[in-house]
């Protein structure tokens, strides 16, 4: 079981209110991703759940039991840190078995569990090495191994992939997702990378300045962002947000159109191409559309436009997001 409930959780450092009050339900077996720009309080929120920081007020319940004042060791959660935080003086085997040793498990049981975890994570041939002799990806696996042997109520991941290079990151992302499907244990994952959030999560929690902006499945957030912040944050490349006369035409303060929801070739808008990125499958155009501002447009891979070309384009009518003066979605 791994159900985590936050009720009016607040955290202040002196006069700085990092988390002004968060309510959140994380269901058993869910893969929840906290995403937001740096400094939005997502890591602090994770550390509050872990017990590494004390809450200023509010209640954190794990499986229905109040865990607000329990020390981290007593919460039954496992954490994977950004820096991996492996014990440098211990071999991989010792690193992975450390939580079992702390739990007072017999040597034989420890050995069996370490072997099993090492097999799952492809670490069997590295068990007698020290962390210093491993690559970044292998270290990350050891950190995950150390977390899974305990069979925790939930896993907490604090930006675990940000120290890896791009190619490795994609691989590890898939491994973690597969691990979740295998173990079916609750996972809470912090990242600033919305691609990681979209690809991994069952449920995304978008945070901004310590407040929860929106909670929902990746597609809910993509299709129905509640406000301009979520609209601009979720989706890659970013949604184009326009104000002024064009927005007024739709009866809104701001309208948003995703680059992939723009048709090139005909339409009410026109502009000059400032940059064309040919990725093969797609072409991303940066277009200076005068009063509308600079817009990003996704065109087919084979489109032949380049710097300085004048193009005609327009939004798909059903894909225009309308936001009111308060930034909230009007539809």
């Amino acid at each position, binding site marked *: 079981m791994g159900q985590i409930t936050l009720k009016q959780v607040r955290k202040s450092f002196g006069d700085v209110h990092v988390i002004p009050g968060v309510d959140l339900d994380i269901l058993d077996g869910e893969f929840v991703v906290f995403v937001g720009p740096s400094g939005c309080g997502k890591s602090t929120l994770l550390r509050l759940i*872990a017990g*590494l920081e004390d809450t200023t007020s509010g209640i954190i319940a794990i499986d229905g039991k109040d865990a607000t004042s329990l020390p*981290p060791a007593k919460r039954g*959660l*496992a*954490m994977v840190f950004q820096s991996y935080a492996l*014990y440098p003086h211990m071999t991989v085997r010792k690193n992975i078995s450390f939580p079992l040793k702390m*739990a007072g498990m017999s040597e034989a049981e420890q050995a069996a569990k370490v072997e099993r975890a090492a097999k799952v994570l492809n670490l069997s041939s590295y068990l007698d090495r020290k962390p210093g002799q491993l690559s970044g990806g292998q270290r990350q696996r050891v950190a995950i191994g150390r977390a899974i042997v*305990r069979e925790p109520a939930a896993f907490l991941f604090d930006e675990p992939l940000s120290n890896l290079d791009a190619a490795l990151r994609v691989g590890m992302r898939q491994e973690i997702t597969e691990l979740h499907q295998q173990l079916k244990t609750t996972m809470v994952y912090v990242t600033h990378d919305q691609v990681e959030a979209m690809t991994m999560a069952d449920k995304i929690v978008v945070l901004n300045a310590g407040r929860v902006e929106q909670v929902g499945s990746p597609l809910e957030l993509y299709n129905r962002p509640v406000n301009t912040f979520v609209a601009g944050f979720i989706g890659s490349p970013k949604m184009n947000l326009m104000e002024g006369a064009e927005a007024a035409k739709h009866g809104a303060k701001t309208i948003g159109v995703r680059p992939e929801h723009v048709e090139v070739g005909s339409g009410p808008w026109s502009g000059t191409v400032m940059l064309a990125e040919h990725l093969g499958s797609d072409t991303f155009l940066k277009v200076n559309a005068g009063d509308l501002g600079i817009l990003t447009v996704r065109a087919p891979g084979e489109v032949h436009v380049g710097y300085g070309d004048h193009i005609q384009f327009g939004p798909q009518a059903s894909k225009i997001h309308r936001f009111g003066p308060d930034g909230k979605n009007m539809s």
Partner: protein
Amino acid sequence: MARAVTTQRKIVYTAAAWAVGLLIFFPVFWTILTSFKTEASAVASPPEFLGADWTLENYADVWARSDYPRFFWNSVVISIGSTLLGLAIAIPAAWSMAFVPGKRTKDLLMWMLSTKMMPAVGVLIPMYLLFQWTGLFDTHIGLILALMLMNLPIIVWMLYTYFKEIPGEILEAARMDGASLRNEIIYVLTPMAIPGIASTMLLNIILAWNEAFWTITLTTINAAPLSAFIASFSAPQGLFYAKLSAASTMAIMPILIVGWFSQKQLVRGLTFGAVK
């Protein structure tokens, strides 16, 4: 423009380094040399070098005239005792400053270090009287306490800089892994800090071994270490340079040997944190 390290520059730097090194070593070298000269040769002017009369008599004399093993033993007890006691107090202190710092931790550290800026003679009379009243005068425990207090700021500072280098996330990981504070210290913190603790210990033993002001002032016979042994050859006999040199050589030799074998560890200790 990149600065090329030319062979010529290397030679100049190496020569300069050797010159400075030899300059620093010269007094020690001269002391050792003098200890093998006759008294007449030792005070000859101009100083005699190759043509001096060489002898081992001074060592025989010094050995016969005083109880070297007792002074030696006292030095060992006092330097190691004060170091171990100092570490026992400084480790928890440095730990709390490094890992649970308060608003005034930096000030506290500076204040501790500032006590080292005070001239020792400033507290000579109160210390002397305190030692007389409490019966600590000329005892091992008295000197262990005095030297421990003298060097405690340095021990705390050194350990603090070592502990600061240990990433907090590793300690948090141990906490998440279910380690109690005691287990966190035994299985994670201490093994990671051992190189730092070792070099702190070595440096402190050397400092305590060479300390002369308090060891000479606060002892007479029973607890007198090698510093007092040297002093005993300088005062009453007047100008017996060769014997004084022999006594000095006998006093510094053990710590020189220890220092030689542990120099790698020591250099690491003294330059730690200088370059990250």
